[in-house]
Structure formats: structure tokens, C-alpha cells
């Protein structure tokens, strides 16, 4: 399977920013500073269980259900 990490990161940004451009950028930067650069993942990126687990934890801390 592939692409889940990209979908999860995009969903975090979508839910947090709600379409606001500034919040889209700041949320993306927050994710990059946590070590998850949305631009480094694509629909073809391998689904690493370890990375997925970490992103779920980040989403939970942000109060986001994905």
C-alpha cells in the first residue's frame, strides 16, 4: 500500500486550516518542524507503519481525528 502518509498529513492541514491560507502555511511549517514534510510525501510514498503511528500521535495531540 502507498500514499497513506500523504493523505494523513494533508488531512491534518485541511482540518486545522479550514481553507485559510495563513493557517495552511503555519500548520505545514509546524509539521515540518516535527519532522514530517508534506512535500516529501506523495501518493506513491510507501506506507511506513512507524511513520503512520507517529503522525497519528501528532494528530491526536492537535485534537484532530484522522
Amino acid at each position, binding site marked *: 500500500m502507498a500514499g497513506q502518509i500523504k493523505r494523513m498529513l494533508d488531512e491534518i492541514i485541511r482540518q*486545522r486550516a479550514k481553507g485559510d491560507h*495563513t*493557517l495552511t502555511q*503555519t500548520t505545514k511549517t509546524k509539521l515540518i*518542524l516535527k*519532522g514530517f514534510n508534506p512535500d516529501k510525501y506523495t501518493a506513491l510514498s510507501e506506507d511506513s507503519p512507524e511513520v503512520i503511528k507517529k503522525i497519528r500521535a501528532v494528530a491526536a*495531540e*492537535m*485534537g484532530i481525528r484522522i
Partner: protein
Amino acid sequence: MNIKTAYSTNKAPNGVAAEIKDQLEMNGVKAMLFFASSQYDADAVSAAMQSQYGDIPTFGCTTAGEIVSGKMLDNSVVGMAFNGRIIEDMKIAVLKNISENVKDAVDEAFKSFEAYYNTKMADMDFRKYVGIILIDGLAGAEEQIMDQIGDKSNVMFIGGSAGDDVQFVKTHVFAEGKAYSNAAVLVLIKAATAFDFIKTQSFQNLNKVLVATKVDAAKREVLAFDGRPAVEAYADAVGTSVDAIDEYFMSNPVGLMTGDEPYVRSPQRVEGSGIVFYCNVLEGMELSLLQSGDIVGDTRRALDDKLKTFGPVSGIINFHCILRTLELKNKSLTADYGLAFKDVPTVGFSTYGEEFLGHINQTSTMLVFK
């Protein structure tokens, strides 16, 4: 004027506080921010400043150098007073014991903000509220606190890590007459005017990427870049020998890039075959090698750009990295840097790290009020 600035080099805490107050007379003061050299007794200067202002909240921290409109200073206190046209309301929270207990401390502070403003942090309008964070510069807790803040709110908290005049012994934050170590002060402001931010650093991306493949995050240490001992990979990237790499640390830090914008990570020292940084590097991070540039020129450009897009400003709070200050001192450019702010009421200090979405180095982060 809705924001006024002042400074004093009076050696006595009571004297310095009185001189600052005398210069900042204006009607309807809502808050007083001050940055004090660590040469002053921290408890005494915080108490003296609050004593001058009575019920008006005062807050601040110790420094590694001070900035006030038109000047860079040492061994002084600088202050900024705000009236109700800038700050509609504000609430201060002190986070204690931050080297051990970040999550509970941030939770408690945020609960106090929510109770005060009767609004959940997650729902606060990031265009109406802005936060200032001043944090012990030696507790090593900046990343965790900024992470917690960023997770729980869209409100931007901007600030700096307190200094102690490059002694690296003890730093303090101030709130309402008290001084705290191993602590952070969070101030949540409901602004009465528009505000914006400047984040500026003077580096060129050399387009050489180092991937941190082994780290000790708790120690802010990179053990390996690209699967090689960190010192060897860094030495190759800058084009020198391992023995000489510390000569390049200030001029060639690395940047975590978001588009064209670097979030700078500055190397501090060699430890065995690893490199300890002034802020965290996580495993897997791709870092671009940077080359230092013209701090004064880039700062002037950043200010001019902001004035063009944002319009006239009432005041600026400048959180300015001590490594930038040391570079300016080495090049005898501190006077030129100070003059970049001569036309705008400004206070600031030389920090042990800057906070802007995360913890960063060799940067100036500025809060700008219209």
C-alpha cells in the same frame, strides 16, 4: 503615541526602574515589557519595575544584550509601555519547572487563558490574539513548549530565550514583580490594533543537503549525517578538515527549509564525532547548508518590506539571536544594526534562541504592532 520606549543604565534596580518609568509617561498604560541585563539582581529589578507600575502588569526577561529604538546596548534595561489602543486585554501565565514538566505546565497556562477570555484556545482567532513567550534560555525546553503550544492553538506565540550576557549560568524570566528560573512566561494579548510578524535571517542556501540519520534529540546532538559521522559529513560539505569545522559553525549553520525559508539550526560544539546544536534536529530531517550574509542590509530590507505591506507601525519587539549580535560585534556593526530601528519605537534583546512556530537560531523574530 500608543507605544513608548526607554532605556537606562542606572546600576541600581530601583534607580533603573524609576528612570524607565519617568521616560514612559503616558495615559492609559496597559502593560510594561522590559528586558534587563543579567548584571542586575533579577529579583530586585523585577520587583522594582512592578513597584513603579502598581497594578499594571509588567513582564520581561534577562538578556545577552539589549535593543532599543536606534541602539544596541549592554548592561542596561530597556522598556516598552503599551496603551489601550495597542492592547485591549492581556493575561500572563508562568510555567514553572519546565525542564521536567512541560505538558502539564502548558495545559495549566492554557486553562487560565481560556478561563480569562472565556474562549477555548483552539477556537481563538489568530488575527485578534497574539502570544509572547519568554523562556529560560538554559532549560532546553523550548522545542517541547513550542510543540505543545502549536498543537493546541492557532494563535501565534513569538518570543525568545532569556540570556545571561554569555555567561551560560542562569537566566530569568519576569512576571508581575517576580523573577523565575527554569520557567517560561506566556502572555496572551487580545490586540486592539493589527499586528504582524517579521522573521529574518541572513543566509544563502548553498544547496548542499545533509540528512540527519542518527541523532540524540534530548541532547540536541546529531551523531550522523548521511550515514557518516556528523563531523566528517559537515567538514566535507563546508570544504574543510574535521579539526577546523568549529571555525565554520557561525558562518555555515544548517537550515530546515520550508520552501525558500530556512528555520536555522546552529552548530554549537563538537562532541566526539557528533555535533551538538543550539536547537533540536530530528532523525530524517533534511538540512541545507547555509552561508551567512549581510545582517544589517537584510534587516533593513525586511523592515522596509513590512512597512510597505503593513503600513506605518506603532512599535516592534525584536527577539534577536545572540549569535547575530556576536557577528555584528565582530564586524563592528552593532551601531548600524541599531540605527535600522531608529524611526520605529523598538525594544528587544539578544536571545539564546528565538521562538516562531518552533525553536530556531541565528534569526530575528519580531512582533509588529500597527
